[in-house]
């Protein structure tokens, strides 16, 4: 029941809980990256809603703003903003992710002139200077929220929500472990869970996840696979891959384990310093962070081992510079360590790609000896 609710939420943009949240006079802001400090927003009764393409493959209007050399996930999201599907948002936080996202937010500002667009600057390195800077940025975001939405965000309230996030992260880790050894869920379920988490207030999401975890399924598969690479919210695509027999039992992407697996818990320190550490250090899972390649490789390797997978799929959208280049290096290194690896370049939500992807997955399953 809860699992199907989660799938339903993942399939819509403005879900029933968002509508209720708004009817209570609360705000919703759109963002596109896991560097967004969720507890800070929620402490001000502002729901951070992560932009996604929701399977939309039509980018005809967006293409006249962005170019065909830009990532199709970004173009898809821009299209949804331009056609009004995201009109329920009260503004945007332009979280510094990759170049494509930066251009997307600039075009949103240019074309739609939203009343609230705040730039959250996220460094590409982790050291004491960048952590100090990022703590300042988080404070600036708090002030921007307070100024724009007329709310007061207290440190106590941030801590309260940080503890809730800790609990959710813990639960998510438990949920992932239910997929590792003897899998009880499909990868498409896991992606739907992640998408729902990014679209709901945390006090709604937590009980939903808890009861969904009780709905263990009987799963058929030929091979167990870990999914890595660029952000992937395409539930339908995962379903198609799984229909071939390649069960996704773990993800290190930022719409997967990358968003919570390594996240530290609140330790009683200064709230802003803590949030800076929590989010910037966790971001090392993303190819946008420099000097952290070994960290990412080891993250994939250790999760692959723990989940006892037969192979790894490294996917990225065409024109994704960060993961396109990173995946080339990861393939070399993982293969060297005896982990069968498939690099999959695709267009977001493209039905035209499905046939090709299925053939490649089938060949991969055979290569893994399954």
């Amino acid at each position, binding site marked *: 029941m809860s699992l199907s609710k989660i799938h339903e939420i993942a399939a819509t943009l403005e879900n029933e809980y968002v509508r209720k949240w708004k009817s209570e006079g609360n705000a919703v802001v759109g963002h596109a990256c896991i560097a967004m400090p969720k507890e800070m927003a929620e402490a001000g009764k502002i729901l951070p809603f992560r932009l996604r393409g929701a399977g939309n493959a039509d980018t005809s209007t967006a293409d*006249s*703003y*962005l*170019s065909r*050399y*830009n*990532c199709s996930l*970004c173009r898809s999201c821009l299209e949804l903003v331009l056609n009004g599907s995201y009109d329920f948002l009260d503004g945007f936080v332009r979280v*510094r992710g*990759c*170049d*494509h996202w*930066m*251009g*997307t937010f*600039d*075009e949103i*500002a*240019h074309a739609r002139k939203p009343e609230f667009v705040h*730039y959250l*600057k*996220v*460094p*590409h*390195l982790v*050291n004491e*200077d*960048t952590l100090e*800077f990022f703590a*300042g940025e988080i404070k600036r975001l708090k002030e921007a929220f307070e100024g724009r939405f007329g709310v007061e965000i207290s440190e106590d309230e941030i801590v309260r929500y940080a503890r809730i996030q800790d609990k959710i992260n813990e639960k998510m880790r438990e949920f992932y472990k239910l997929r590792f050894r003897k899998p009880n869920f499909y990868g498409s379920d896991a992606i739907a869970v992640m998408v729902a988490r990014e679209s709901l207030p945390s006090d709604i999401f937590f009980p939903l996840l808890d009861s969904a975890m009780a709905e263990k399924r009987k799963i058929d598969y030929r091979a167990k696979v870990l999914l890595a690479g660029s952000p992937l919210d395409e539930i339908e695509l995962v379903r198609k891959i799984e229909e071939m027999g390649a069960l996704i039992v773990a993800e290190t992407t930022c719409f997967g384990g990358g968003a919570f697996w390594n996240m530290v818990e609140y330790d009683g320190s200064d709230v802003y310093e803590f949030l800076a550490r929590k989010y910037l250090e966790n971001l090392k899972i993303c*190819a*946008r962070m*420099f*000097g952290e*390649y070994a960290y990412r490789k080891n993250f994939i390797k250790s999760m692959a081992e723990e989940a006892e997978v037969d192979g790894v799929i490294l996917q990225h959208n*065409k*024109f994704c*510079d*960060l993961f*396109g*280049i*990173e*995946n*080339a*290096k990861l*393939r*070399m290194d993982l293969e060297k360590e005896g982990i069968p690896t498939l*690099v999959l*370049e695709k267009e977001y939500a493209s039905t035209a790609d499905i046939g090709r992807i299925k053939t490649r997955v089938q060949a991969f399953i055979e290569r893994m000896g399954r």
Partner: protein
Amino acid sequence: MSALPGLVKRSYEMLKAIEGIENYTWEEVEGLYSIVGKDLGQSAKALLDERHDGAGLHFMKVIAKHIREAVEAKDEGKKVILIPFNFPPELIHAFENAVPLTTEVMSTIGVVSLEGQGEPYWDYAMSLGIPDYVCSANTIELGSALMSVEALEFTPDAIISGAPGSCDVNSKIHEFVAEYLGIPELTIDKTGGGKTDYQLYRKLFLRMVNELEKFVGEEIDEDRIISVTERANECTELYWELHELKKHSPCPVPNMFTLFTYGTRFTMWGRDEAVSMLEKLVDVAEKRLRRGEYPAEREIARSVWVYTGYYIDLYDLWIWMENNGISYLTDGLNSFFPNQFEIETKEDALESIVSSAWNYPMTRQMGADNMGIQWFEDLTYLAKDLNANCAIYCGHHSCKQTQSVFRIFRDEANKIGIPVLRLDGDAWNRRITPVSVLQEMILDFVQNVVAKKRRRRRR
């Protein structure tokens, strides 16, 4: 895979010969064309064109020296630091025991001076699984650097990455090479265009200087860095003199002088070689102004290229435009907005270098709070200052940031009456769009949009 030597090795051999040339006649250039083949021949014809009055040869010698110093540094026990174009080479010149080698300049040298252009090196990178939408500006040279594992190319000792915050693909391909070759990478980061961003950038830059000192095994000497930054001040003065000369119509500064300027900026700034190069450019332009020289009957278009130019055929693009009355006044890569600095101490000198790096093209625009607006403001400032009547975007296919905000640039430029042509090609890779198509589009734009607008204004 290929047994062809790397780009640096080949360019070194080729340019060594050029360093010995003193004088030449046009007949000799034509003769050279028939010997060296089309790829190098077109570049030789463009660089050695009479209108440049020897400035092209001078430029080749500057670049030859840049490469020679890097290749020969190893024998002298010095470290070779591979730097990206958006990083001030004067910092490396301040070291006694380190020399810079600039990635994008090397790619350009490969494209303009080697038979087969940069294609073998691009293909090598692709053969390793790197996707084909990465930036040719860096991937050609870095593809060649990857060949050093097969002893086909010379290996740099360390890599500086200066693009995080302004260009993902540039930063990422540098990281790939550092990981692949197992050499250290030193990275800076630009988070935006405000005061706190500058403070962070400065801290990271100085942190990197510190790491570099440790790596090279030498603390930068105060006298040496002061002398380097004083030379940089002289270069800045000459840069602005040349900029002033470009305001005349018809433009007395040949199209290719913009390329010579930034080629010098990216390699030898802060050195006597750069000062003499820029003196030569100013001198030639002043003479042309006095003599009223311009290769076409009329200057029809005064264009600002808002990002890069094309390097795939210097003669049939840069020279061809000028012969058709299309002046290439400046471009995005030349938008340094350099300043002169009061330098008395090592700290002053370092501060001046940090500030120059912060203001570098691309870092300045694409690392701003709003890429589209900063890009528009900078380039239209230059367009207005130089009385340009049009803007051209090369549509470099890898430039995801410029591509993504081009619409903002064009809409804003149109509001202030500057027509913009958007081309679609790869500045360093001729396989994407043929030169003839680019020529056709440029001519069409100039004749049907720019010239008509001029006529309307005159009526």
